[in-house]
């Protein structure tokens, strides 16, 4: 399995981690994905993606301190590693480069 390229969902999760920072953990990521990407994603899917990203070395996590909200249960806070930042940035560059080559006329035909 090639591990170099980001899958689309992984990319969204990485972006969500950036958006939610410094409070990036399961439930907040789910909220961001719902609000910003319009995706109803189950926590199971998010955890799986985060595990995979951690395995690839793109995110790291640490357990936060217990807080009185959510019954005093700790949060696992995620942040991007250097490699993760690099990859998500790379993904953005690829997209922007390609968007810049799209002729405006053909875009109009796509309809909105």
């Amino acid at each position, binding site marked *: *399995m090639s591990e170099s390229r980001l899958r689309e969902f992984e990319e969204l999760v990485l972006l969500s981690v950036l958006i939610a920072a410094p409070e990036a*953990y*399961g*439930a*907040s990521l*789910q*909220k961001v994905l719902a609000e910003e990407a319009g995706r109803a994603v*189950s*926590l*199971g*899917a998010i*955890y*799986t993606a985060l*595990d995979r990203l951690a395995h690839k070395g793109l995110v790291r996590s640490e*357990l936060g301190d217990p807080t009185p*909200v*959510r*019954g005093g*249960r*700790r*949060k*696992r806070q995620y942040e991007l590693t250097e490699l993760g930042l690099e990859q998500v940035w790379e993904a953005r560059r690829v997209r922007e480069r390609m968007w810049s080559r799209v002729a405006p006329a053909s875009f109009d035909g796509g309809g909105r």
Partner: protein
Amino acid sequence: MNGPSKILRFLLRLVCPRERRAETEGDLMEAFERWAEDRGQVRARIRLGMEILQLGAWRAVGLVRGNREREEAPSRGRRLETLIMDVRYGFRRILKNPASSAVAILLLTVGIGGNATVFTAVQEVFLKPPPLIRAPEELVGLQSTMGGRLIAEFGYYDYEFYRDEGEAFSDVLAYGGFPGSQGRRTDNGGGEVAVGQNDQVELAGAWVVSGNYFRVLGTPMALGPGFSAAVQAGEPNHPEVVLSHGYWTRALGGDRSVLSRPLVLNGVAFRVAGVTPPEFRGVNPGQPLPDLFIPILQAEALSAGYNEQLRRFQEDGSPSASRFLRLVARLEPGVDMDQAQAEATLLQRRWDAEFTSWAESVYGQTFQVGVSPQFYMAPGEIRQLRQALFFLWFVVGAVFLIGCTNLALLLLAQVSGREREMGIRASMGAARRRLLAQLTTESLVLSALGGVAGLGLAVIGTQAIPATLPMNFRDGFRPDVGVVLFTFGLAAVAAVLFGTLPAWKLSRVDVAALIQRPGQARTRAVFRGGLVVGQTALSILLLVGGGLLGRSAQNIRSVDLGFDPDGRWIFGTQLDNRGYSEEEGLAFLSNALDRLAQEPGIRWASVCNRAPFLGSNTLSFTAPGTDFTDQGLQTGVNLVGPDYFDAMGINILAGRAIERDDNTGSPYVAVVNETFAARMWPGENALGKTLDFFGESITVVGIAETVVYYNVRESPRRHVYVSSFQFYQGMQNIVVAAEPTAATLVRRIEQAFRELDPNLALVPMSLEGLVDTQTSSFRVWTNLIGIFAAVALFLALVGLYGVQSYLVSRRTREIGIRMAVGAERGMVVRSVVRWGLMMGGIGTLIGLVAALLASRFVRGFLFGVSPNDPVVFSVVPALLMAACFAASMLPALRASRISPVEALTEE
């Protein structure tokens, strides 16, 4: 969020590794609050459940996918992962060994299916109240006890008394057969009320119920409003009827317009007040549901004089002696069983104060009244059912145990083949616990498959089981969620029972020894021996039970009924249905007998009030100059016509039979049976003696042979016959003894009766059929136990054979050496067979002792055979030992053919 529910928490624990649990829970709680705010509590809860399930699914997918990448390193928090692996491995093993797996699953299917079937019946009969009854915990049944004997039925007077006077009872309902025969219908579909007009008359089975019956039960109608207020209040002259759903669909095609047109019952138009829901089974699920529910005080319309008879008081002011109603009371809120019992006792005292002398003169004793929370059945019925069901449970339980034992043996035999596999796994670092878990999972997979198949078997079995029970559960049973849970619980137990021992042994492999000399790890024969002994003992138990029942069935078939059922027919009829007065009824009977006498092919024709096996009249007689001058002697009574004894084939031992001239104009006469005569007038000649019966003096003119009256298993009963033409009853049975060649007899007799009265309904029954019904439950039982005993024996032999074959294969090397140093073949054979016979012998001894102890529990099922019957107790062990010998002989012969050279070169 008030925290996830327990179930969700449990699920979460299952799908979430421990080190991640707290944070996951926190995320879920936070998300839950958000969902609850957006969409409300209910949806949020559903979403939460879905989330947890998806967590599990994602985890499973991730693990399965991840397996290929990661090193196999079972650790805490990876339980799900290893479980999935083990399950997959279990399935692979099943596919790899299709033959032995099929045998294993079959064993489990039979064992689990049998138990699930019996469990369904036990649950339906004892644990669940009948369906569609509101607040069944408030209902109690009333029963009376007379001299230690329980009588579930009451008279109508009693009903009104308890309903109106009982302060602890918010209401009391009554139900009973119309008229007085428990709603019983013969197998050929006959019944008691004629529905329709002219040539389109059909019979339907009817109950009379109190007007408040459905109200007290809280049962809604599927169609129609139910009984009107007037009927519920007990006002007469409101002919209404409620139809059972079955009858409505069967006889009326489910036509909804029945509500708007009258239904003609016995020539009288009845308004259809409603149709019961299809699931409604009445109060007593052990009785067949009737076609028609007729309000008790409206039955007057069907049978003139009915209400008067219900409430009839004797000349001395006593109520009618006819007890045919069962009573169910609904307790006032807050009243407990003790208070209800106290109330019943209090009422009973008041009743006694009025009627003690009456009860003593009619029954010879007074009553005690009790309440029972098991309102739906009489205690005697419950006792019989319990006995039958627990016996069944014992049988299927034994087969289940034998099956599990066999599986253990089967798996043990595979141990040697898998020692190497386990050794390799262990040497790669698999912990013992890990190996045990894997092996247990394999058993669980097997037993889960067995459980699924067993459930299928139970669905079939539960349809067949009513035939084995003493009462009439015509609809069969349906397994429900509880049964499914039970089945899989049992499957898990099976997995433990048959999986633990082999798993234990396998997981204990000595790695070093194995790698040096594969196939030599030690598994001791003692365990196998123990299993073989256990199996043999259980098979002996079942075989003894089967043998005793088989002998009972044989005895029942050859029981001397005292009459000859061959070629004899009974035509049941209810003259009250036609509104005949006593004179008209007697005239009709007289005409009918004359008409039948002309019919060719009929040897004898007569009439009687009670047909054999179909209910009884029990009354008490006094006789001057005997021990029973003041207190009466209870006896069965039948009203019979001329030629009755010839028509039934019953011998008259002295004096004469009832004759045509014994009619209203002549002195009252009676024929008594031998048993009655011997009790009433011991050592004297009964002929010419007189009996007192409700103030009438009756002369004994004949003594008849004692025959079977109600039940082929009864001990000799006292019986008195009086003349149909002196004591009239509306219920009459025409008895006909036909020539053997009279093929069209039934049709011709029906034709003859139609000429006499086209609107009279007849129920033809062959006497042979009635006898057959009596013995059928025995046949079913014998067959059932016989099948199970045969399965058990077969399993035990397969088990023994398997063990012997396995031991021989393990001893190949040893046998080879022995033979190389000069042992004879005979010696080898002997040593193998000796072991088999020894195990079989020990098992047989244990089984025999257990059977001797257990057989007294089956005494109630036996007939004419002692629970310690020497024939059964000698034939069964002999049979089993012979079978053990055969099962040992084949492997022994194979052992003796071992070539020393091959054996020694074998690894």
